Structures are given as C-alpha cells and as structure tokens.
C-alpha cells in the first residue's frame, strides 16, 4: 500500500513534469522540468529495488544530459529565446501521441505479464552486472563498443565545435 502511494505520487510527478517539458514556453523552465522528470523516475527505480540504476539515472540523465542542455540553453541565449517564441501546440501531434499511448496501454493489459517480481539475487545483482559486462560470454563487446561510440562522438563534436 505504502509502495503504491509512493509510486503514484512520483509517477504523477514525472508525468506532469514530462508534459511541462514539451508545453512550457520558457526553455529554462523546460530544462528544470526535465530534471524533475528524471528525478521522479529515479525514485521509481528505488521502488524497483535498483538503487544502482537510480544512481546512474541521477548521474547521467539529471546530472549529465539535463545539465548539458541547460548550459547550452544559457550559452546559446538566442536559441533559447527563439525556442520560447516557438512553443506550439499541435493537434495532429497530440492525436498521434495519444492514440499510440492508448495502443500501448491496451497492449500492456493484453499481454501476459508476470505478477510477482523475481526474488532479489543473494549475490547482489550489481556484482552480477559488473561480471557480465566484462565476460566474453556476457556483454563484453557491447560494453567495449560504448567506448568506441563515445570516442566517435568526442572527435566529431570537437570538429563541429571548432572555430575556423
């Protein structure tokens, strides 16, 4: 019961924040709402017994992505001003989004989903995750490939940002 209340509070919080992100006219407010939304979802990860994911969520999303966008909107002040003027409400877009949401909600109720969560692993899921990331029979290659992806990005972003 307690968990359900916590879930509902933070789910509603995250959802309202998400809607604010796409509707609020001021870009600086949108960034703050985006951070709030990520924070609300991080709390849900705690409910899901995944404190590690909650931490990552706060570090990468709230701390990284949202702050990055925030800083950019401050630096590129003109772009932010422009964005404020250009907030629009699009009926076709909301109809598309809403109908796809209803489709997904129907699907969620239609498909057989497990009722009870898996028991917590005695070894600790974080240790298992760490092992899987460096295990050739696990997910070593995707883990390495993340490094390649970030290198490409770093090099490319440096090039794009270079003064000339």
């Amino acid at each position, binding site marked *: 019961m307690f968990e359900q209340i916590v879930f509902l509070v933070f789910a509603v919080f995250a959802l309202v924040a998400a809607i604010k992100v796409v509707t609020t006219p001021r870009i600086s407010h949108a960034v703050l709402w985006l951070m709030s939304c990520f924070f609300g979802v991080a709390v849900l990860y705690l409910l899901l017994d995944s404190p590690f994911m909650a931490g990552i969520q706060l570090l990468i999303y709230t701390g990284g992505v949202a702050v990055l966008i925030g800083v950019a909107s401050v630096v590129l002040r003109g772009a932010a001003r422009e964005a404020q003027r250009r907030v629009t409400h699009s009926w076709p877009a909301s109809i598309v989004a809403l109908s796809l949401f209803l489709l997904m909600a129907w699907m969620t109720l239609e498909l057989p989903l497990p009722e009870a969560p898996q028991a917590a692993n005695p070894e600790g899921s974080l240790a298992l995750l760490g092992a899987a990331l460096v295990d050739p029979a696990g997910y070593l290659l995707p883990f390495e490939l993340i490094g390649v992806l970030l290198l*490409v990005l770093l090099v490319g972003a440096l090039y794009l940002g270079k003064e000339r």
Partner: protein
Amino acid sequence: MLISDYLYLAPVLSLLAGALLILLLDLLADREQMGRWGWKAALASGLLALGSTFLLGDAPVRVLNVLAYDVFTAYVWRLLLGALVLLILLGESYVRSHTDEPGLFYALLMFFAAGALLVAASTNTMMLLLAVELLSIAGTLLVGFLHADRRATQGAIRCLVYGSAMTAVMALGFSWFYGLTGTTDYALTSEALSGLWGSSPAPVIRPIALVPVLAFVLVGLVVKTGSAPFHHWLPGASDVSGGFVGASAPVAASLAILPKVAGFAALVRLTLVMLPEALDLHIVWRWPLVGILAVAAMLWGSLLGLRQHNIKRLMAFSGIAQLGYVLIGVVLATEAGLSALLVALTAYVLAEMGTFTAIAVVSQKMPLDLVSDYRGLYRRAPLLALGLLLFILSLFGMPGTAGFIGKLWLFTETFRAGYIGLLILAALSSVISLGYYGRVVRAGFMDSDAGMAPVPVPAAASVVLIAMMVGVLVLGIFPNTWLRWAQAAAQVFFASG
C-alpha cells in the same frame, strides 16, 4: 576462447585500428600530408579488413556471445568492405579539395563502416541497437562534415532528429521483446516466445497484441538503416537544401549504400532467427508488416522519383524503390527468396556505386546536380555516359546486367510463393521507374550538348566506373559462381531446421 573470438572480429578490428591510426597521424601531420596519406591509410585498413574475411573459414561461429560469423555474414561483410574500398578511392580527390580535415573524414568513414559490419553480424538486440547507433552517429557526422557548407550541417541535424526518434522507437520495441522473454539474444528470444505460445493449450499471447511491438522494431530498423536517405527527402515547402542534396557525393554514396546493406542483413537475421517460424508472429511480421513496407517503398520511390529534377534526389528515390524490391526477399523468407535478396542487393550496390561515381564526377563540374546538366553527356564524357546507361539499365533490370538476374529471381520466387498482388505492384513500380530512368538516359544520349563543356573524368573515378561496369556485365552474363555464393549464404538459416 577469447582470442579466437577476436580473430573473427579481425575485419572490424582492422577498420577500428585504421581509424585510430588515422586519428593519431592527424595529430602529427599537417593538412597537406593528411590529404596525401589519409586515404592511403584508410584504403590499407579497408583492404586488410576485406582480405581478412577470406581467411576466416566457413564454419558458423558465435563471436563473443553477441555476433554470428557464418557464410551469410561473410557475404555481407565482403559486400560492405568492397563498397568501402571503392568509396575511399572515389572520394579521394573530392575530400582533398573540399574538406579542411581529411584525416578526420577517413577516421569517421572507418568507424561508420565498422558499425555497418557489426549491424550485419549482430545476434543480440542490444548489440544491434548500439551498432546501429554507431553507424548513425558516424553517418550524421559525415553528413555534417562539410562544415563550410551550411546545408550540410542542416542535413546533419535532420539526420540526428529522425535517427534519434527511430532509435527510441526501435529501443522501445526491443525492450518489449526483452520484457516478454527475459533475454536479448535472438535465438533465446525465439525459444522463449515459442514457450510462451506452446506451453498451454490456449495461446497465451494473442499475436495481435504484439503487432505494435513488431511494427516499432521494423519501422525503427528499416527507416534508420535500410533507407538511410529516408530522412533527407521528406518534402519541405520551399526546401531545396535537403540533407541528401547537401551532403557531398561520396558521403551520399556511402550513406545510401552501407547502412542499407547492413540493415538488410540485420532484418534477415531478425526475421529468421528471432521470430519463431511456427508462430503467427512470424507470418504477421512477414506479410502485412514487411510487405506493406515493401509496397510503400516501391510505389513511393517510383512515383516521387518522377517529379525530381535534381539527379541526386532522383537517385535517392530510385534507391527507395530498389529497397522495396529487396524487401520482397524478406517477405518470402525462403531459402531461394533469401538468395534472391542477396543477389538483388549485390546488383543494387554495384549499380548504385557506379551511378554515384558518375554523379560525383559531374557534380565537381556542375554542383547543382540537375538532370539537365547531363545533356549530351555521351559527347562530353563517353565513358561516364556509357557507365551511367549501363547502371541505369541494371537498376531497371535489363537482361544481360546484374540487376536483371536479381529482379528476375526475386519476381520468380514471389510468383512461386503465390504473392501475386505483390508481384503486380512490383512490376508496376518497375514500369513507372522507367519514366525517370528514361529521362536521365534521354538527357545523356539524345539531347544535344550545345553550350555544355566537356567533363573531365579523374583517374580514380574511371577505375571505379570501369570496375563497376565490368561487375554489372560479368555478373549479368556469367552469374553462376555468384549465385552459388548467394545460395550458400542463404543456406545458413535453413541448414539445421
């Protein structure tokens, strides 16, 4: 076990090593030197990668739990790497004269190609997602590479916005597959789905409930890779500065070819390994979903191609239509259908490489890329005009060219499998495409060249053109060895079952 697994990654690793080497050289050398050495280093690592695929043997191997190396992978990798090597040759003069960072361009191209190889071999949904992202981020940067040209940066932004949306949609679909099965491996997903279906007398999942998930995955994958120029040609009011037009010809060629080939390989693997054949899911995926996409691509590409006056755009639409024909191979999902798919894909790559080479050459001289710039080309540059004619005939499917073999086989298999409606639509689209192919041929061969200057053809472009012309003709006239390769590659998915 670890070392031997990495051996099978040799082609990918040589591309990555090449990219890192170029980045390193870039720090030491100045622009002039990079212009001279960058493409050689890239070419060397591309050739090394291509060569290493011939040393790996034919036995199917599971590489590091997330990739599969087998004859199918080898076929697709050779196709990709062959195209890459030619692209480097082709782009050389263009890159030297048009960019201020040639080293970086080649490094990005290597990363891009490595992403394509990984997409083609992936057997795990998260691996596929990541590889597709590597492909698309490197591709976005390549589009935006010609920084001085503002149109290129706009093209890159479009690429990023559409690409990211498609990544998200695809990831959403894969998250559901994971949620229903508890695994991200294709084969295990297939087993788990069969288990969900078969364990109880009444079906546990109604297949219809999974259709949205299938559609997300399909749309995400195909839009993001299979039709890379997709996001460039959505029509915009008064918009003539779209990304595909903005991107330079060598970039356009690599964006059109590499992701498509890799995306098709991934689509084939998803269809045949991840979706259990016995389930309705497999059927739903093939006929309504992939089939509709095939029809849409064929008709859309052919009809909108008719309206284009810019030859790069025209060829982009033609590419969409070609994509539709190749998708038919996935709809069939039989051994013969799959062989036909590989054959058609190879023919497409040859003709497309050739066409883009020709366009790139003319574009150096006349950067507007209008069809009318090709007036009387046979007088101004005979080799170029002859090549263009041959490639267009191959794309159309003229007997004696590689494209004919691919199309004929695909259409025969479609007929044999009983998809008559699909066959009629494909034939119709072929006929429509004659309209715009004819326009290019007419401009090149029938219109007078009054007032048009001759077009000099650089040596590298001549090499690529002649190689592609020989390829198209040889495969069109003596296709036997080639067909056997394609059949061997297709057998990978059917040998055990």
